[in-house]
């Protein structure tokens, strides 16, 4: 595995990768108290994102995603890290604000959706420079 992701928000992480099958709207899609996916139309409904390295193929929906992300961090139910094809200002804003509040936050990296798919279910480490290894 010689993958290297671009750093969006710095940090390192390890854990099991959960690659979502479809884009998700965090507002109305993820329960902010538990981290469980609650969107009735989403194929990963019922899966929990807390502590996972969450790979997002894309984002849709409300500008309240930042509020849900901040709430997940505050509740201790945030993912261990975020992977996304390109920076999403709204979701990552929740992480930026949580960092300003002095709470422990997940790092975020850019990784294309194709590369995310191959990582699903694996236990990986992401170094601070974005290098992905097992």
């Amino acid at each position, binding site marked *: 595995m010689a993958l290297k992701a671009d750093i*969006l*928000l710095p940090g390192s992480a390890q854990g099991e990768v959960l690659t979502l099958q479809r884009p998700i709207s965090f*507002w*109305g899609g993820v329960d*902010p*108290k538990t981290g469980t996916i609650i969107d009735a139309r989403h194929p990963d409904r019922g899966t929990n994102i807390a502590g996972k390295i969450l790979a997002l193929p894309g984002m*849709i929906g*409300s*500008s*309240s*995603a*930042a*509020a*849900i992300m*901040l*709430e997940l*961090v*505050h*509740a201790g139910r945030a993912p261990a890290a975020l992977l996304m094809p390109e*920076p999403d*200002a*709204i979701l*990552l*804003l*929740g992480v*930026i*604000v*949580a960092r*300003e*509040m002095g709470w422990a936050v997940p790092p975020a990296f850019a990784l294309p959706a194709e590369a995310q798919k191959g990582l699903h279910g694996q236990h990986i480490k992401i170094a601070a420079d974005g290098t992905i290894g097992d």
Partner: protein
Amino acid sequence: MTLHLTDAERAMANGHSGAGAAMAMRIVADTAQLMGAERLIPIASAHIDGALYHGDSGTLFAERLVADGAKVAVRSTLNVGALDLMGCSKQNLPPHERDMAKRMMKAYEAMGCEPSWTCSPYQAGHRPVLGSDVAWGESNAVVFCNSVLGARTNRYGDFLDIACAIVSRAPDYGLHRTENRRATVVADVSGLSEALRRSDVFYPVLGTWFGLEMGQAIGVVDGLQGLPNEDNLKAFGAASASSGGVGLFHIAGVTPEAPTVEAATQGHEPERRVTVTGEMVLAALKRLSTTDDESVDAIAIGSPHLSLDEVRSLDNILNGRMLAKPIYACTGRHVIRAIEADGTRAKLEHLGVIFVADTCVVVTPILPGNGGVLMTNSGKFAHYAPGNTGYAVQYGSFADCVETAVTGRLTRDLSLWR
């Protein structure tokens, strides 16, 4: 691309204007860096969507800013909160949530934001001028501000809106830049009947179609010259921003950056032209209703918040008739004050209208019981009611909604669509 901050901006981030302003500047600068902006630009005003309670963390953030001395530096109106502070309607929030929601609303007021508490700030006296840069949140307010007023804003979400207001700066990217405001798709509606194009009920439906068709792309509609009024444009934009990610639309001969189709495309050849047919808009109309159940339990109007003109229309169509089913009429306190002064509020409440101020029926628990059938003329209510309230939706025109409320039976005039 690297972000370049001025000396003054850097000093603010380092705390020269206080800890609250420093935190706000770091949030704005971090976002700018993330989105590839090279600089920050001054803004003329803000509309803040961040005071709607989603959980305790948002309240703690706002209270941290207040404690650290942050104040907004530009005119900042507030979008809806989770509570009707005017006391027109009741919310069924548990005590802890009610307390935290109220603390949150008070914290935003303490930072100097205007207690407008409306999603139609542009009809409550907040109208930035053509070409000015602003930081607005709430998808319908964003799309109206960009499209109808011609002021420039991205879709500012929770936290970034207030941070920009405090530092009076925003990241220079997206819809702040002229080249990114160009229409790439032309939608020609001139083949639809003029009666339909002149009707109120057409605009939320066309907006729903437009949002689904455009996604995040910018389109220009041709064939509506001289037809829509401001409330029609409000309904169109809100529907398009609910069904798609529309932040800016153009309507040739109507909106300020589109005197012509060519002006809207900035002289470029469009990537796509779509001829809108009766079947297309009929499909959008059908999509807005989620049930065949004709036993309507309640009617909701006012997403976006009703204008004074719309409340006057309600009064005229009702014409003193008592309601068999309640109409929840969501509006801002700017309208409540006007209709209180002339007795309209008391008159309509006596007939069975329930006014909802400062908030609305899809963002906080107001509708009774555990669901039922909700009739609405709003594309936005139709989109969000099933997920947020548990109510199924019957969609109809403003007049259909009023007649259904009076008779208690679903009444719908579909003659325009045939």
